[in-house]
């Protein structure tokens, strides 16, 4: 670990009044503003890039009562909002109960799903509740592209869920797309699917976390595609959410809306299905485990006193990046992307716009860390580890019709998720 750069200094002195908000965030907040909670490692699908290497339920999975007491604690800490995921959270038999429990305790929920349980009746229920937001995962705008990554039938499942939500009158669902080499040419189609369902498109970066490590080399967008993606995002402006995923691309031009900060352990964190707390949803690895809610005295205790989080909240050196002209906006990119490709944490991102990542990846000394947790289905469905063979025709004139309006106030979006769209800085 190369995170430790200076001795610990917690508590803000009065002289630090004028500190900009981003610097405040770097020091960490009283509670996360972007908390992801994965309720189960069980999943009906076996997506090749699953960030949590999900599939089988963990026998140590937290009980209903343990989940309720976490919600009680989140309420007391005033964590107003959680991103619930998995695995596939809706396969937990107590999922709908926990959803209601959270909402009744002033903890709003956005949950991510592959759509498997969103039938017409559930869609009507969801449309009738406040404070619940639904995010459906879709990794191809066509069944061919999507199912290659997420498995046979998963496109139809997601679209059926979206159709049910639309029919039920659910407003502004999110469609979450992990951008890959094979779907990056479909961004306009994704936007159209979202518009047709009154939904908002949310694009996230493919990171080499979980099973993503196995397929990252062949699935992550090429350098040219990254540039096209960046330009598409600039044109889309705030109509498309990114959860601050792409701040490592800011060096292509001006910075994208968002915090442009790695929020891991500072404003972001993950609670996993067995109560382990990690720095961010993309860092499920022993190295980034801050503690356990059950054995270490609860979530607040872990958030406030974890030694790992203490180190992450200290000023980080830029290392090899500090001389770069883009360092202010890029900050060396994503810690998880570096860690799981075996790159130094204080050096360039593997997808560095300057191309330094490619050079670092070519280093013969590089070793990729092994997964410390793997819940993948033991008997993989056919095709799971097969190389991605599909080749899409490129569309040279992928013009975006919508003219993005200038935002009145920039949204601050913590990296991995985006609870903050529409943020207004008040004086």
């Amino acid at each position, binding site marked *: 670990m190369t995170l430790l750069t200076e001795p610990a200094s917690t508590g803000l002195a009065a002289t630090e009044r004028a500190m900009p908000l981003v610097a405040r965030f770097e020091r960490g907040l009283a509670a996360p503003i972007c908390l992801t909670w994965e309720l189960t490692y069980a999943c009906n699908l076996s997506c090749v890039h699953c960030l949590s290497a999900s599939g089988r339920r963990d026998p140590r999975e937290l009980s209903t009562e343990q989940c309720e007491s976490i919600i009680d604690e989140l309420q007391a800490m005033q964590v*107003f909002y959680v991103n619930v995921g998995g695995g596939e959270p809706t396969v937990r038999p107590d999922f709908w109960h926990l959803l209601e429990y959270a909402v009744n305790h002033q903890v709003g929920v956005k949950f991510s799903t592959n759509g498997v349980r969103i039938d017409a009746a559930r869609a009507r229920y969801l449309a009738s509740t406040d404070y619940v937001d639904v995010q459906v995962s879709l990794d191809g705008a066509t069944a061919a592209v999507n199912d290659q990554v997420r498995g046979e039938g998963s496109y139809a499942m997601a679209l059926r869920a979206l159709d049910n939500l639309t029919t039920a009158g659910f407003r502004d669902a999110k469609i979450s797309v992990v951008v890959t080499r094979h779907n990056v040419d479909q961004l306009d189609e994704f936007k159209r699917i979202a518009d047709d369902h009154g939904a908002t498109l949310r694009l996230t970066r493919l990171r080499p976390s979980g099973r993503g490590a196995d397929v990252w080399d062949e699935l992550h967008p090429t350098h040219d595609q990254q540039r096209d993606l960046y330009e598409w995002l600039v044109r889309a402006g705030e109509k498309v959410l990114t959860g601050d995923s792409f701040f490592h691309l800011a060096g292509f031009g001006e910075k994208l809306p968002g915090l442009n900060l790695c929020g891991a352990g500072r404003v972001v964190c993950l609670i996993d299905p067995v109560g382990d707390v990690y720095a961010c949803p993309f860092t499920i690895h022993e190295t980034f485990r801050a503690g356990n809610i059950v054995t270490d005295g609860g979530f607040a205790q872990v958030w406030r006193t974890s030694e790992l989080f203490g180190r992450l909240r200290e000023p980080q050196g830029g290392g090899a990046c500090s001389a770069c002209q883009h360092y202010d906006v890029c900050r060396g990119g994503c810690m998880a992307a570096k860690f799981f490709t075996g790159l130094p944490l204080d050096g360039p991102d593997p997808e560095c716009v300057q191309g330094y990542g490619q050079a670092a990846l070519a280093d013969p000394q590089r070793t990729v860390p092994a997964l410390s947790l793997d819940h993948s289905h033991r008997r993989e469905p056919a095709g799971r580890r097969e190389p991605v063979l599909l080749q899409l025709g490129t569309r040279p004139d992928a013009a975006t019709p919508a003219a993005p309006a200038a935002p009145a106030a920039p949204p601050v979006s913590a990296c991995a998720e985006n609870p903050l769209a529409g943020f207004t*800085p*008040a004086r």
Partner: protein
Amino acid sequence: MSTDTLEDQTLDAAWELSRSVALRPESFGALAYHFGNRRLIFLKRRELVEVVRGLGDAPDARTALRRAGVPAEQWASFAAALRGLADADVIRPRQPAAEQPAGEQGEPG
């Protein structure tokens, strides 16, 4: 409309914390969360937080500012901040007299 008028209107009005909003103390001030539109807003000064918390008990914003000990020369910038908070529905104009029923469910935590 001149800035002065707007500023006076803001300072003379009675306000309260919106019922859909909760404030979470942070070292720099507070984080406001709006349960209705799911927005997070950062109040970057402790004095502003104190003013906002005091609005509901004060006949007008001027009184809340005075009670929070904000020097008069800063009232203009605080008025602008309050307008920003009103636009974001963090604070709302308070209904005079015939108050709403007390048993509301919106106020969290």
